[in-house]
């Protein structure tokens, strides 16, 4: 493929994916407020637009017009840089995620991910997740506020601890697929057995891996039941106490973008990616894989919100004990069992 075409295609894909991702972030907030509200027997947003669908737009306008206050005693360079770091690395990891089969236009094959099929795609996502910890830690420290510092340190210690279990739960999938490339992992989950059960990794032995991944993902994205570092009743608001308006919105966006990335990764690795029933005319055949992918990500996000509405939050020492003393051994046992299963 000529280089100019590659660059043009990448730019177009980046623009489209970024636009879709930011819209998805805004409407995930709407979805959460509606679903959470209904679970608590109330309506959620209903006034702004039909079913409250324009609520994210109203929220965005509010954040734009709010006063962006920088308190006087903060360490200004890091205070301004921390939300940028959080949001940049939350949005970067979407660049190696494939959304469907490569599309054939004319005589060129264009993969449906912003980069081409990277050999070590999974490692890149893990690396970007590791760097995202800095946004939280630096925000907490630069705010020059003991609640923010404690919240930031707790949040980053939690994220670093659960990153290990996250990585280990993915290794089971890697052993079964034999490659770090995300497209290969999805291709290894094609087909059915017994005619109707799809050959997704969650059904072919990675169920424990899936639950390890799920729990570690809740802790990585600081969501209930692991959201002590930013709970309002605990530490004022944790690491984003001193932030207002657009900077706070950037932390918010970073959290939801992380949720979406984690959901995309879960569907690629455990729920079969874009594999699903394909039927109909060629244009429908091209769009259906992306539709199945989006449906699975939506189901995963619904599960996120469902868990938020159901469970209470862990205390911090319970949280750390759970991560190190339960989840890490379970992930290790899953890894060993998968290795033995594949070797036979």
């Amino acid at each position, binding site marked *: 493929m000529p280089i100019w075409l590659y660059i043009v295609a990448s730019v177009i894909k980046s623009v489209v994916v970024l636009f879709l991702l930011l819209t998805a972030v805004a409407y995930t907030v709407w979805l959460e407020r509606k679903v959470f509200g209904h679970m608590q027997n109330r309506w959620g947003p209903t006034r702004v637009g039909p079913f409250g669908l324009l609520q994210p737009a109203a929220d965005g306008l509010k954040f734009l017009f709010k006063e962006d206050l920088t308190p006087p005693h903060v360490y200004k360079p890091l205070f301004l840089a921390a939300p940028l770091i959080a949001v940049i690395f939350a949005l970067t990891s979407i660049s190696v995620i494939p959304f469907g089969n490569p599309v054939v236009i004319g005589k060129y094959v264009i993969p449906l991910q912003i980069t081409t099929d990277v050999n070590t795609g999974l*490692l890149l996502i893990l690396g970007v997740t590791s*760097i995202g910890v800095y946004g939280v830690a630096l925000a907490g420290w630069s705010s020059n506020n003991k609640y923010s510092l404690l919240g930031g340190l707790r949040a980053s210690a939690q994220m670093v601890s659960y990153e290990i279990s996250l990585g280990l739960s993915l290794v089971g999938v890697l052993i079964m697929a034999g490659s770090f490339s995300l497209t290969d992992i999805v291709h290894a989950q094609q087909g059915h057995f017994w005619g109707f059960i799809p050959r997704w990794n969650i059904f072919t032995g990675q169920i424990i891996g899936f639950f390890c991944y799920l729990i570690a993902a809740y802790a990585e994205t600081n969501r209930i039941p692991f959201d002590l570092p930013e709970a309002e009743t605990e530490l004022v608001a944790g690491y984003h106490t001193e932030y207002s308006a657009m900077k706070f919105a950037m932390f918010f966006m970073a959290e939801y973008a992380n949720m979406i990335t984690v959901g995309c990764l879960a569907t690629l690795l455990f729920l079969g990616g874009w594999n699903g029933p394909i039927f109909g005319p060629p244009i429908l055949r091209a769009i259906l894989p992306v539709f199945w992918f989006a449906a699975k990500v939506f189901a995963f996000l619904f599960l996120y919100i469902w868990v938020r509405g159901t469970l209470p939050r862990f205390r911090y020492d319970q949280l750390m004990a759970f991560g190190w003393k339960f989840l890490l051994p379970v992930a290790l046992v899953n890894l060993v069992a998968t290795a033995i299963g594949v070797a036979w």
Partner: protein
Amino acid sequence: MFSVHLILFLFFGAICVAGAVNLLVQRHPINSALSLIAVMAALAGEYLLLGAEFVAAVQVIVYAGAIMVLFVFTIMLLNAGVEEQSKGSHVALLFGIPGMLLASVLLGWVLLKHSGTEAVAAGALPGAPKVIGQLLFHEFLLPFEITSILILIAIMGAVVLASKPMGPSGGPPKKVSE
């Protein structure tokens, strides 16, 4: 002459050099830590240029994403402030910097003069995870197992060093509240 490879090498190299010099120049440790993170990220880019994709990913995940997080934690916990200057540090500055400049110029001159101009192609030695894994578990199995024991020793040492001092007569430390 100016291939894309050379331009990328110079780009990442410039970030490395700027980060290393910034580490020396900054007086607050948190700024030094952040410039070191920038150096490590740029080095990961250099490893990618040499084809070592697995090493680049591990550099970002382990070095920039875990070891430096430890450093940043320690700086935050101990509330490290701006460095104080003393007589010893002025002497060190006076002799250290010219000495190191001289040594590094000498080193650079020797390297450039004697290494010739054999070029290393972009992506010269693809280090796919599979091949590195095979090497790790076949030829380097003994070092691999020994490093795992080393990590275990380091974990135990760190836990013992950072725990509270023991109660009187060598019992477990007294708890403040149950």
